[in-house]
């Protein structure tokens, strides 16, 4: 964020030891990517998947009303997920970083622990909790708080819950990393110079932890554009997200060229978003005397 002069370029010489890595990268990342881009210009074929007929029809189809709505919905879901995880994750990371070293490590361990379990299994856990005869409803019924089971599964709320649940650790860990690096005497200096605690936070802590916030937002926003199984499992497929659309094109419509085109569109979309976001946060330090 600050204008630090670039360190002089280190000499680049490719060591033979990295050649296998380059081969793997080219074979498994670059080539498939070229293939995906390539088939976006081809037509679908019922028998062989694709024909060798070159066309731009797939790109024209992107802008159909249905697709645009899916894009808009996905965008709203991704933004909401990002904002929600940020609102929960920032305070969480902030206070975690201010605990003693021992407590901190323990909390971070707790956050990371669920990653040892497959995310589909964890989401199924939520279904058990949320379903009509699930733990939450049974509990509330037993306590007499409700008279009939709440419909809390298979709706947008359950889907958002799943999204936030799945992506929150990414937000927490990236913000935590930057809060942990904070020099707290800066806050004392801010207080000494006349800032109330919240003003010191806004003027010093927040700008200095912005890199963590940006990283967290990117880490949450990008996957939430493409996650389809959460919408399927918890949202009851009520909202069609970009991820669902792509999956459907490949598996149900068997329209590989269209699926590939949607994938590329999603990539481009998130890429543009990241660039815009970077630009915005780079100017965050402005304000006050220039």
């Amino acid at each position, binding site marked *: 964020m600050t*204008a630090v002069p670039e360190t002089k370029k280190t000499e680049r010489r490719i060591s033979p030891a990295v050649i296998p890595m380059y081969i793997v990268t080219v074979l498994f990342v670059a080539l498939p990517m070229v293939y995906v881009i390539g088939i976006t210009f081809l037509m679908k074929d019922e028998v062989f998947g694709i024909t060798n007929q070159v066309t731009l029809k797939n790109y024209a189809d992107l802008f159909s009303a249905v697709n645009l709505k899916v894009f808009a919905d996905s965008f709203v879901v991704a933004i909401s997920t990002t904002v929600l995880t940020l609102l929960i994750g920032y305070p969480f990371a902030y206070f975690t970083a201010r605990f003693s070293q021992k407590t901190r490590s323990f909390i971070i361990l707790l956050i990371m622990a669920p990653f040892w379990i497959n995310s589909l299994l964890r989401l199924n856990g939520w279904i058990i909790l949320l379903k009509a005869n699930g733990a939450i409803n049974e509990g509330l019924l037993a306590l007499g708080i409700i008279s009939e089971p709440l419909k809390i599964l298979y709706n947008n709320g359950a889907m958002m819950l799943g999204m936030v649940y799945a992506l929150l650790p990414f937000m927490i860990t990236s913000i935590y990393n930057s809060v942990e690096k904070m020099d707290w005497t*800066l806050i*004392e200096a801010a207080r*000494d*110079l*006349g800032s109330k605690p919240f003003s010191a936070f806004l003027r010093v802590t927040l700008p200095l932890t912005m890199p963590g916030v940006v990283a967290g937002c990117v880490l949450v926003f990008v996957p939430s554009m493409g996650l389809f199984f959460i919408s399927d499992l918890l949202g009851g497929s009520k909202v069609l997200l970009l991820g669902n659309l792509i999956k459907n094109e490949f598996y149900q419509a068997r329209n590989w060229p269209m699926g590939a085109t949607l994938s590329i569109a999603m990539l481009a979309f998130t890429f543009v978003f990241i660039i815009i976001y970077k630009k915005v946060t780079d100017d965050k330090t402005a304000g006050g*005397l220039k």
Partner: protein
Amino acid sequence: MDDMILQLKDLHKSFDNVKVLKGITLDVKAGRFLTLLGPSGCGKTTTLRLIAGLDTPDSGSILIGGKDMKGLPPEKRPVNTVFQNYALFPHMNVQKNIAYSLVLRHTDKEEALKKVNELLSIVQLEGYNKRMPAQLSGGQRQRVAIARALACDPQILLLDEPLGALDLQLRRQMQVELKALQKKLGITFIYITHDQEEALNMSDRIAVMNDGCIEQFGSPENIYEHPTTRFAAQFIGQSNIIEGDVVEKVAGGVRVQICENNTIIVKGEYEIGEHLALSVRAERIDYADKADFGFALNGTIKMHSYIGGVLRTTITLQNGQEVLITGANPVSRYPAGCAVQVFWDPAVAAVVERGQGK
């Protein structure tokens, strides 16, 4: 007590059951350059933090300009701090750092800019407005930190070992500049250091601190020439502590027995049988074949070492104690092993401890 800008009354502070301050009482006149001098861990930084409001005392009170600071957060106190590591905001340029407190007070933009430039010229950094802290040297950061702390015209400026990270040349230069700055601004400076030379060089008043207490409070001359405690004598300058029992009253003083056949004269009134510990500065002691001042301690020269500017001589007394003597002469007439008599003007010795003799 009207002209007292700062009054500390019996301050106590503990961290995790460790007593850091054990009753600090101090009155500081407005416009003074006061130094808290002491070894690390003596509680000087804690004292500063209590004054700034960054920590709260367990008991005791702090009055600034006669007003009790109890319960006032740091932002409401008329003091500002220059932190040990400068604590410049790394995401703001020099100008924004200095203007931080001005922006908070909604100072008019033009006025704030004028003030920033004025402060930059005071600390001799004109034109550095747009530099980022990372692009500055240690000495420059230090100056920015001072300018920033001065921006909202504090009644007291607190400086926590601000020269600690600088090299010797720059330290000396900054000492002179800081002192001149304080004179010019007329603001009270409370300065923390463990460097006695720095303290003696800059201060109007020095409070020597040790183990959570103030050992001695006075002018630099007073502290140096008339230490009142053993610690103050040994922490500042090269002191020889000479101990013995009063054996006889003489005109204007007493005779104190140091060891067999060796006595010294001490000025002042003491009772026979009392045990005295004296501090005599290394440069105030002399030695020769024949002593002056009506007393002499027999000793043998152990060694000479020339340390640049002064010759340091170690002499072993009859009782085995070693005394350190510094002299301006780079060579001594007496080689090592030579028997000499050690003496000093009784007026320059300070009694730092008195108690019952054995």
